[in-house]
């Protein structure tokens, strides 16, 4: 019965993730379309231009996203001589999950946190703060590492990367689009289809908010899913639960984290309110783990 509930949660979360990605896509393209309407009017060239520009943006950010994230976090590669314990734990869990060992990084920060990034399980990276390494015992560290490995195995790290890029694109497009719209109205007032432009304006204003909320919902689901998969890998949910309890006490606020990179971390790296948090409450995660 226990095993079954893990798998159920995994498939349900995967399906929800696909739906959410689809929604983000719809909003991204709606925003892009309105942008091209304002800029070029109803022309084929406008559509083509927007398509090429946004594809190029997505391609470059997407293919470099993991390097950018690791760079921003100040992570350095963990050598086996220096962190034999961590390297062994990650290697062992990669075997359990049936994925190649990801590149392992450490972040010199007393806060307790970790994240996984990468576009596929074959080219993934995991990073752990030194605060995490010094505060956790082996079972607890295995729990956290299993959680990150699960993100990689379930293609969460690709999804998170995709989300960061998509939301970034929507924010930029709607920002530029709004400015263009006001400018074009000032320059050539009276011109342009009124209702259409109004609709576009509503989409432009709402899109970043909706994208943000979608991203947060997605991120919370992914955390529960990764907790469940981690328990399945270690066959010991208590390790992760007790790690979360320690993190609650010590704190997970990392120096080099921002709004944009928050969803990728193990525990929330920035202090914000509950409603718009990228992570589910730690107590709820502990409760779910202990009831498995």
């Amino acid at each position, binding site marked *: 019965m226990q095993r079954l509930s893990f798998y159920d949660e995994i498939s349900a979360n995967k399906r929800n993730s696909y739906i959410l990605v689809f929604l983000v896509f719809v909003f991204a393209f709606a925003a892009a379309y309105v942008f091209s309407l304002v800029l070029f009017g109803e022309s084929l060239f406008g559509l083509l231009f927007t398509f090429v520009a946004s594809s190029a943006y997505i391609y470059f950010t997407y293919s470099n996203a993991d390097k950018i994230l690791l760079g921003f976090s100040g992570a350095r590669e963990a050598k086996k001589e220096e962190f034999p314990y961590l390297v062994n734990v990650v*290697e062992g869990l990669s*075997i359990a999950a*049936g994925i190649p060992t990801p590149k392992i990084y450490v972040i010199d920060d007393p806060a307790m946190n970790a994240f996984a990034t990468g576009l596929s399980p074959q080219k993934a990276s995991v990073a752990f703060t030194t605060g995490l390494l010094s505060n956790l015992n082996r079972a607890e560290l295995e729990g956290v590492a299993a959680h990150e490995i699960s993100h990689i195995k379930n293609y969460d790290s690709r999804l998170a990367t995709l989300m960061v890029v998509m939301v970034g694109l929507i924010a930029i497009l709607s920002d530029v689009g709004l400015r263009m719209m006001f400018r074009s109205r000032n320059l050539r007032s009276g011109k342009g289809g009124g209702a259409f432009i109004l609709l576009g304006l509503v989409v432009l204003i709402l899109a970043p908010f909706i994208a943000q909320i979608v991203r947060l919902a997605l991120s919370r689901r992914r955390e529960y899913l990764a907790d469940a998969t981690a328990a399945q890998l270690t066959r010991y949910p208590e390790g992760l639960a007790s790690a979360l309890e320690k993190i609650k006490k010590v704190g997970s606020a990392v120096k080099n984290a921002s709004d944009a990179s928050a969803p990728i971390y193990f525990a929330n790296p920035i202090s914000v309110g509950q409603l718009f948090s990228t992570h589910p409450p730690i107590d709820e995660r502990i409760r779910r783990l202990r009831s498995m």
Partner: protein
Amino acid sequence: MDILLLAFGAAFLFFGLAFILMYNSLVQKKIQIENAWSQIDVQLKRRYDLVPNLVETVKGYVKHEKALFENVTKARAAALGATGVSDKAQAENMLSSTLKSLFAVAENYPDLKANENFKMLQEELAGIENKIAYARQFYNDSVLSYNTAIHSVPTNVVAAMFGFTPKEFFRAEESEKQSVKVQF
């Protein structure tokens, strides 16, 4: 008449595609089991490679335990040479228990316990023991997924046609369950 033909064609195409997909997924699961099995061997081999190094390091500090070193070396050679599942399992158990007594002896030598190289080897061995356990777990997970597939409708039809037979789970022997844990 045309409509009937079209319906037959569509059904044929649909079942053909479903058939191919099911066959491919079974092959993939079977290959994953083979891969998982070789993963276990990789880790076991890494343990054999580690033993001479460990014995050399301990020898530097522990002078009067010749029989112990001989036992470890013999157990390693036996495990390396063993063929067949049950022989191999028995030899692995021997090796595990001699390593256990090696570490028990090391407990009495504070200088040895403080040695960086020894600590590294100790961590390495603990890591390998863990990886062996995880590799076996992954093997069993793979077998579970494969066996479930060949017994469930509709993949069981494809499995029966192409002779996909159930695979056996890895079961740890009672004695081995105890000896896998190396106490430091």
